[in-house]
């Protein structure tokens, strides 16, 4: 299969990645190649087979609902691109 350019642009938008116009045709070719490789999956019937989410088929471990981490906001925000008064700053979302 070959992905239409429009579809690649849609995927890039969903993935929040801006595309360079000159690169789109190469991106389209590479993505189409990968999907062609993946097509081989359809060579076998998987009706009735349970998907394997965890290689050892174990379930998530539970723990008591108690606080186990301390607040380290200042520490974590020391590596943030832009903060003010303990808040992360982004461009204005609401007018």
């Amino acid at each position: 299969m070959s992905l239409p350019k429009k579809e690649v642009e849609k995927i890039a938008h969903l993935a929040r990645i801006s595309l360079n116009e000159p690169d789109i045709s190469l991106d389209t070719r590479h993505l189409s190649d990968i999907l062609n490789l993946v097509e081989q999956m359809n060579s076998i019937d998987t009706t009735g087979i349970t998907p394997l989410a965890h290689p050892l088929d174990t379930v998530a471990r539970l723990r008591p609902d108690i606080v186990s981490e301390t607040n380290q906001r200042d520490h974590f925000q020391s590596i943030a691109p832009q903060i003010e008064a303990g808040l992360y700053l982004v461009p204005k979302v609401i007018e």
Partner: protein
Amino acid sequence: MHNKTLSELSQALHLREFSSVELTHYFLDRIKRLDTHFNSFITITPDIALAQALAADERLQSGDATPLTGIPMAHKDIFCTQGIKTSCGSKMLDNFIAPYNATVVENCLAAGMVMLGKTNMDEFAMGSSNETSYYGPVKNPWDTKTVPGGSSGGSAAAVAARLTPIATGTDTGGSIRQPAAFCGLTGLKPTYGLVSRYGMIAFASSLDQGGPIGHSAEDVALLLNAMAGFDSRDSTSLNHPKEDYTTHLNNSLAGLKIGLPKEYFSEGLYPEVNKVLDAARDQLEEVGATLHEIHLPHTHLAVPIYYIIAPAECSSNLSRYDGVRFGHRCDNPQDLIDLYKRSRAEGFGAEVKRRIMIGTYALSAGYYDAYYLKAQKIRRLIRDDFVAAFKQVDVILGPTTPTTAFKIGEKVNDPITMYLSDIYTISGNLAGLPAISIPAGFVNQRPVGLQLIGNYLNEARLLNIAHQYQRCTDWHRQSPPGVG
């Protein structure tokens, strides 16, 4: 000094033949002099290393040392190290100073090991050649025109060039075993869940697993002793009792049943590589093992389903890099969407973007059943192939890679050919099984790796077989030309 095994280094440190500070200076000096040829380190941490070495010497003095105390090592730059840049090979994290230590890093510190620095790697561990790193390709010490493999290529090159006695790596589709094979080293991917993933930057969470890369099975067993263990901070950590992986190294292989999957010795495998493996099979027979042909009938579907499962999980895991809380942020964003899109477009390299987009597509509305769910169903079939095989045999033997190390630039513009170089290693990740690559010979002076895949939690058995093989061969003791 740089050709000593971990046990020999440990003994010398305990007998005060040299101090950890002296040993650390020695390896730091080698890195400074030689790494310009290989580019195996992203960050060197001499001050931290020497402080840790001083502390190790005090521990050795006070009699409270472990067998690993004072031994220098390097961490793949995917493991978070508090106060030290942790880049994951990406421009996205070029400015990222990790605010905490990964559990693996903590465990190595607790054992008294000395960190020399952080090693180069494919960006976010996505690659099989170390060419996707933001910090430039790593060169294979056996032939600097060839790749060291990936994604743990920096760790493998650093160990092969004797710039560090041992290093950590991670393996999502072969990223420990393939570089170990290309660089003539011993590399172990443990059972999924044996080594904590806490603080190990996530690529595909149901496949990622940390492990050691060293010269010999014995060295690797010693580091695995420190790395492995239950961790409440990793929700998929196995609650498995601590083992000493050196205990069974000397067990006899008499009666060992080795399975040879027909599908691993078919088209695609280079005849010269097959010839090397033939000799290895004979040697294992001589020490008491028996060989049996087995079938893993769904092998051909491993690469196709991997390129749905791994990108799907990667697209989800890498959504955290948004230019808001840490990592790269674009200049002058027009609005929030522009901030996200340009920060990610500038911060990620081509291969990472490709995988995020494939994953986004596979998980998007209307495609989930056809791609992700279908892949997870076939994943069960692949796992069940192994379950059936381990009813007949104790261990599975095959090649680690279809070829030896390829030339830098040879496959970089052809992602599919690059993906197929992981054809024998990917199944182990999909099934969550432990697997080891050990040096088994050379083709045109380039190392060949032999892979052993074990049943769940059979790391000790794999290391035992590898050690017995290494007792009657010396492939693991060969040094690249000029490294000595």
